[in-house]
């Protein structure tokens, strides 16, 4: 049996279940406790990545209040419940898919979910996090130099919060280097650090200094 056939069998098997492949994917999304990539989901469901990605997009649209069949629904003049947004959404963050409660309901959900509530970061912590995010991997000393203050305790807090992590040592100085974690991406709701806002528009009158100061990193 070729691999292609196996994959096809997987899909056929799923479609035979009540609710089909889409419901099967939903069932898997119910038990994951961290973002799952489309590859992982495809492997688990025994279908191709393309199939899973189509299904994920369908679900995402449906949860947000538009079914794939919206035109038909309009045509029959019947506003079905499924066109209203659901209380949850499917998002692709930190390279994986995961179900979140919709932000409109944050106040209500917050009454039930005490933990995982993170206290707001201080301005100092935010600035340190920003420097690490844009300069990673980076040593404490370098972050200190940029911020003009000692950042040891802030770095400790950020590490404890799981927003940054040790990424080995600088080959020259031996200093511990820090980088942001995938949890950081999750908290920012982005797929990778490349999606962070551009730094350059915030640097005024930069001509020449950029190359001078940090040619390789801006």
């Amino acid at each position: 049996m070729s691999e292609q056939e196996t994959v096809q069998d997987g899909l056929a098997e799923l479609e035979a279940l009540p609710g089909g492949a889409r419901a099967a994917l939903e069932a898997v999304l119910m038990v994951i406790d961290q973002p799952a990539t489309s590859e992982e989901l495809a492997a688990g469901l025994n279908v191709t990545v393309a199939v899973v990605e189509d299904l994920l997009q369908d679900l995402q649209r449906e949860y947000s209040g538009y079914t794939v069949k919206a035109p038909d629904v309009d045509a029959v003049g019947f506003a079905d419940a499924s066109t209203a947004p659901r209380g949850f959404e499917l998002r692709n963050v930190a390279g994986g898919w995961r179900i979140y409660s919709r932000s409109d309901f944050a106040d209500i959900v917050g009454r039930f979910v005490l933990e995982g509530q993170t206290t707001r970061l201080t301005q100092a912590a935010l600035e340190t996090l920003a420097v690490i995010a844009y300069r990673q991997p980076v040593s404490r000393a370098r972050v200190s130099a940029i911020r003009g203050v000692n950042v040891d305790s802030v770095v400790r807090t950020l590490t404890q919060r799981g927003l940054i992590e040790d990424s080995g040592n600088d080959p020259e100085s031996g200093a511990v280097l820090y980088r942001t974690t995938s949890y950081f991406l999750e908290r920012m709701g982005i797929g990778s650090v490349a999606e962070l806002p551009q730094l350059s528009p915030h640097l005024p009158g930069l001509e020449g200094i950029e190359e001078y100061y940090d040619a390789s990193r801006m």
Partner: protein
Amino acid sequence: MGPSLAPSTEADSAATADTPDAGNPGSRKAGFEVRLANFTGPFDLLLGLISKHKLDITEVALATVTDEFIKYIRRLQELGEDWALDEASEFLVIAATLLDLKAARLLPSGEVEDAEDIALLEARDLLFARLLQYKAFKQIAGIMGETLEQEARRYPRQVALEGHFAALLPELVWRHTPEQFAELAAKALKPKDAAPAEVGLDHLHAPPVSVKEQAEIMGYRLKLGAPLSFQTLIADADTTLVVVARFLALLEMFRDRVIAFEQPGPLAELTVRWTGADADWDSSSLSEEYEAGAESYGTVSEENGSE
């Protein structure tokens, strides 16, 4: 994740509280205006002009800026504005950078004769870049803070695995004896000393001059009471490095508000006077930009912010 079911007003307020926009200095700074002989306008604009070389830092009387700022903050406090402290600490950070910048610009910049002079010139450009960078990161931090807050309104589904699935998990391989486990615990529980950030290499190139040590000397002399000129204070300095260290020490002490400068005009004689009410001041409160170990400079800006 172990959510509790108890409705909590505390969690509620944490999720909903509005912060005044902590990250955007533009919106908060709008109130403070600098009035100098050669410049009138918001503090941010002053910084902007300096960074664009349209205003020479050496022409800016920082003492005037500071005096005005203190007046401004007092007015805010009288009006009961609660963000006065935020703005004050932000001002300190920026003013300190300006002071460093000014220090670098004021150093004799004649002929480049030796490596030390080159190092000083580079330091000046670095300070410049640092000021710009700092402002950029501050803005970005504001944007990140807003994003994090928006995103915190979404709660991920991360529930415990249902019993029948958990039962499917393969049996754990466990090879630890209680003693090995205790060893592991001892290791995990041991207080972790902050690892040294890096191995300092500076001492390989130049004899170390401690800013802190120089600050102690300056402090001792100034606490005697009489105002002293900068010339007097550096009269016994045997190297340029000591002069620089003393100047930086004075800037640090100024930042600590224990001394005041008087200078009738650009390049005129600089007089230093002890103003610290606190006779107990010592150099241990100095920033560790130059010395490792202390935390004091950190505390002002570390703890302010949006909380």
